[in-house]
């Protein structure tokens, strides 16, 4: 027991250190202000991992979110996973992950950022594969790692292009250079960054790894695959926003990606039969919301929603972990009627669902409001998105908030109300231990506390509230009408088959090509050594005709040779 608290203490120490560093920065003015001295040199220097750490207010918020959720998850895990034989490696990887996250957020050196970025990916891979005995965990881990790593090549190239364009690998230095000499290569940089964040944040068309990452332990899902790592994509897009802000191509591409992803994720979440997978799709959809804000030219709204989503989604996932702990499964069919046996979980998760649906006065409402406001405001502005695109995006976002409210209500109803499943009437559910409930309560409080000081936009706020209320009302009305809320629309439950390129086509392609290559390597490329051996063999066979170990042959050859030489000598002299 005490061993487990060592890791909690380690995490707490890390969190404390990060907080001491980050909290004073919260009040700094400006959003990613240009500070620092460095500037453009003669050419990009060789990369170095110089720890140029510097926090802006937004970075400080993200750091605090990461270490805060990380600490809560560590505490939660002592109860949730404390008796697991590999708890030690699990807890250590979480700490490593937090270090990576702090590196990503806190540095101005792009290489340090990349290192942290990849360390997070590695930790994600290792933690998804924590239950490596099971095939789903292995497959999910491999998929997550591969997809994100391929996408990370985009970031790698983006860094190279930034270095080449601005002559430095320091973000601040590059910003100074761009303010002095003007922005350049913005489309290339922006598209490459977009590739990277689409992979990391599971946006269309690389979205499928995130739902498949759900075999990982639930606290990990809460930390990495909801609150921090996937959100780091949003953070990065916002951080590097000045470098591509003037490229309509990039912003339009981002808007399209975000629009497709938010609606698709919400629809998929609506029909899931598994609570955890539904929450994963919800994460995908919410991340798309943040990208929509960035595409609309207001990255601050995006990062605000990042923080708020991080809090309430962590709350939902941790609550989901409590439910799984109680009923032994994350399937909605195994739940139902849990509000009586698990009151604490019920109340905290209700707050979480309310935030997800966008109900006043949770933080989810305010930040969603800011995002919608940002999209609305960007219409008609110079630069950035075209007005038409903006209105389409706004429409999609409103539809998505309707669907979001609907699926949040559906999940809430199916998990906590409704009939208890057959055969589970006795001992159905039990409240989770205090170490698990504690973090839930903290996060629930935070869901309200963060609302303080959030801006409120009257017009769009009212529209958003009406739409969310509509979504809730439709589901509740249908529930009252006796529906079981088991909506199984074939194409949606199959997730439109978007998974197929990743699960069957790509591996089949790789296997096929690799088989061809292996065969070719053995039989094709090897031809020239074999042909060489054959020629040598033939030559030796030919020369063997004179080297027969037969004296007479030798003598004959010598005689012929002498004759030829004599004839030659006679002819030429």
């Amino acid at each position, binding site marked *: 027991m005490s061993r487990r608290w060592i890791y909690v203490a380690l995490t707490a120490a890390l969190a404390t250190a990060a907080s001491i560093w980050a909290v004073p920065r919260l009040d700094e003015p400006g959003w990613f202000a240009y500070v620092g001295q460095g500037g453009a040199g003669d050419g990009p*220097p*060789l*990369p*170095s*991992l110089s720890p140029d750490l510097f926090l802006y207010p937004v970075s400080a918020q993200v750091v605090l979110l990461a270490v805060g959720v990380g600490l809560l998850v560590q505490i939660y895990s002592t109860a949730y996973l404390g008796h697991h034989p590999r708890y030690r490696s699990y807890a250590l990887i979480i700490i490593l992950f937090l270090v990576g996250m702090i590196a990503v957020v806190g540095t101005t050196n792009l*290489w340090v950022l*990349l*290192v942290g*970025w*990849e*360390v997070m990916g*590695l930790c994600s*891979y290792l933690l998804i*594969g924590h239950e*490596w*005995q099971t095939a789903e*965990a*292995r497959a999910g*881990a*491999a998929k997550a*790692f*591969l997809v994100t*790593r*391929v996408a990370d*090549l985009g970031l*790698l*190239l983006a860094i*190279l*292009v930034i*270095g*080449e364009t601005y002559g430095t690998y320091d973000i601040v230095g590059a910003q100074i250079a761009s303010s002095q000499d003007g922005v350049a290569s913005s489309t290339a940089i922006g598209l490459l960054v977009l590739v990277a964040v689409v992979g990391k944040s599971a946006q269309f068309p690389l979205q499928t790894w995130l739902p498949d990452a759900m075999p990982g332990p639930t606290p990990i899902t809460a930390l990495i695959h909801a609150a921090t790592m996937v959100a780091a994509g949003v953070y990065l897009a916002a951080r590097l926003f000045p470098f591509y802000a003037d490229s309509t191509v990039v912003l339009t591409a981002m808007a399209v990606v975000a629009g497709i992803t938010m609606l698709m994720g919400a629809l998929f979440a609506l029909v899931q039969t598994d609570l955890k997978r539904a929450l994963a799709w919800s994460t995908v959809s919410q991340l798309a919301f943040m990208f929509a804000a960035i595409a609309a030219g207001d990255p601050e709204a995006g990062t605000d929603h990042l923080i708020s989503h991080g809090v309430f989604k962590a709350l939902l996932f941790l609550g989901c972990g409590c439910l799984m702990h109680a009923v032994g499964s994350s399937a909605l069919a195994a739940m139902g009627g849990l509000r009586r046996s698990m009151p604490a979980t019920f109340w905290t998760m209700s707050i979480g669902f309310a935030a997800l649906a966008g109900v006043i006065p949770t933080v989810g409402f305010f930040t969603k409001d800011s995002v919608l406001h940002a999209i609305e405001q960007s219409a008609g502005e110079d630069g950035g998105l075209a007005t038409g695109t903006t209105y389409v995006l706004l429409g999609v976002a409103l539809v998505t908030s309707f669907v979001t409210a609907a699926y949040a209500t559906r999940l809430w109803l199916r998990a906590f109300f409704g009939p208890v499943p057959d055969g589970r009437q006795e001992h159905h559910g039990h409240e989770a231990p205090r170490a698990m409930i504690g973090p839930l309560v903290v996060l629930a409080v935070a869901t309200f506390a963060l609302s303080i000081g959030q801006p409120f936009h009257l017009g769009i706020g009212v529209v958003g509230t009406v739409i969310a209320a509509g979504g809730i009302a439709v589901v509740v009305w249908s529930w009252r009408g006796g529906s079981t809320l088991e909506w199984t629309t074939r194409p949606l439950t199959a997730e439109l088959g978007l998974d197929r390129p990743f699960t069957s086509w790509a591996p089949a392609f*790789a*296997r096929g*090509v*690799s*088989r*061809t*290559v*292996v065969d070719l*390597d053995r039989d094709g*490329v*090897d031809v*020239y*050594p074999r042909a060489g051996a054959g020629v040598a063999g033939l030559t030796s066979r030919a020369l063997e005709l004179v080297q027969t170990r037969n004296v007479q042959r030798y003598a004959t050859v010598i005689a012929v040779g002498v004759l030829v030489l004599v004839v030659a000598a006679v002819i030429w002299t």
Partner: protein
Amino acid sequence: MIVTALAVPFVIGLLLMVGRARVSGPVAAAIGAAAMTVSLLLYALVWEGRDVVSGEVDTSWIEPLGARLHLGVTAVSWPFLLMTAFIGVLCCLWLVARDTAPALVGLVLVISASSLGVFSSLDLLLFFVFFELALIPMWFVIAWFGTGDGTRRAATRFLLFTVAGSALVLVGIVVIGLDGGLQVDETVTGSLAAAVLVCLGFAVKTPIVPLHTWLPDAHSTAPTVGSVLLAAVFLKLGTYGLILFAPLMDRFADVAPYLAIAGVVGIVWSGFACYGQDDLKRLVAYSSIGHMGFVVLAISTRSDVGLAAAVFGSVAHGLITGLLFFTAGSLKDRFGTASMAAIGRGLYGRTPWLAVTFVLAAVASLGLPGLAGFWGELLSLRAAYEIGDVLTKPVAWTALALALVGVALTTAYFVRAIRLVAQGEPVEQDADRDLDRREAVVLGALVVAVLVLGLWPAPILDLFEPFTVVAGVAR
């Protein structure tokens, strides 16, 4: 100092081979480790700075040919030398086991010393002499101490390929020598023939697809230390040769595009080949081809960044692949084979430390930032992105694109290997044994080296900052 550093392992190696009946294996290995440590320390101490040739020795040798006994340490060769000596020490430590043949230790020392000689040579003929001197003992290592079917065949294949390559290099050296003499710091040639011959010769050694077919056989049959030396040191003879000769040949520019494309085709090719392998040692061997592809791409740009990339990539590959081969060797020691099917799943559960080391090595090899493998690959990509002196934009950027595909493939096959070996439902076998102390020391040293170079690449990269290395070979 350099002479001592070369002579100590060489002489002790020869003595161990002559007196192989009089010493026991572990004692021989301990002596060998001591000799290599002496060499390592001497090479570390000889360093005088990157702008001069450190510890230069220059005496007459074969006057009529213009060949001199010219040895020295430059900014380019120093990392290679330290890496080789380090790997040599670890190989000897690895052999501190009961069933070691003293002759094998002797061979390892001779090979290491000859390779050190290659890296120290500042005379082309001397370079070639050491180059050849390293080849022959390796044949014995593979043929006598190899395991599995066809060791003799693989050894002969290895020897024929590499000797054919050396023959081309020799002809190239002759051409260069006729044009501009044999001293690395003076000569330069405008001959296209020399460029083609030298590049072709080193391409066999490096190896570049399609001249690579000797490599998987040699690696999979060689004993563990043989594989490690082959991968960590021998392939570097090829890349170092290219690095050394590239500035000497004006017409390198004509060969460079082919070299670059062959290199990146090798990356993709080996990636797919790895994806279909069952034998872990073959997999690592093919992955070496891929990593060498990055190095070749970097060299073919003949730019300053490319030079830094090639040196860093070579050294990092030496450490990482050494680690991978030591791990694969541990597995082969236990299970008698390196076949992933035979080793079985779930090593995480059966031999946790070994599995974790393997995963770390694999992750390092796939170029995760923060580990040594990353910086070499990254700088290669950057060199290709910046095109360099001799390539054209279409060639360089095509190479860049293919290399990126290769990076993705590398991830894919290592993830597959981890999935097949480390993860999965554990099925206990009798041979399940976690690392013993000897293995832990060797693997631990390499892990530390990989981590240090990954998090602090400056020691090597600073040798090339700000890119103009005056002394010695890099101009």
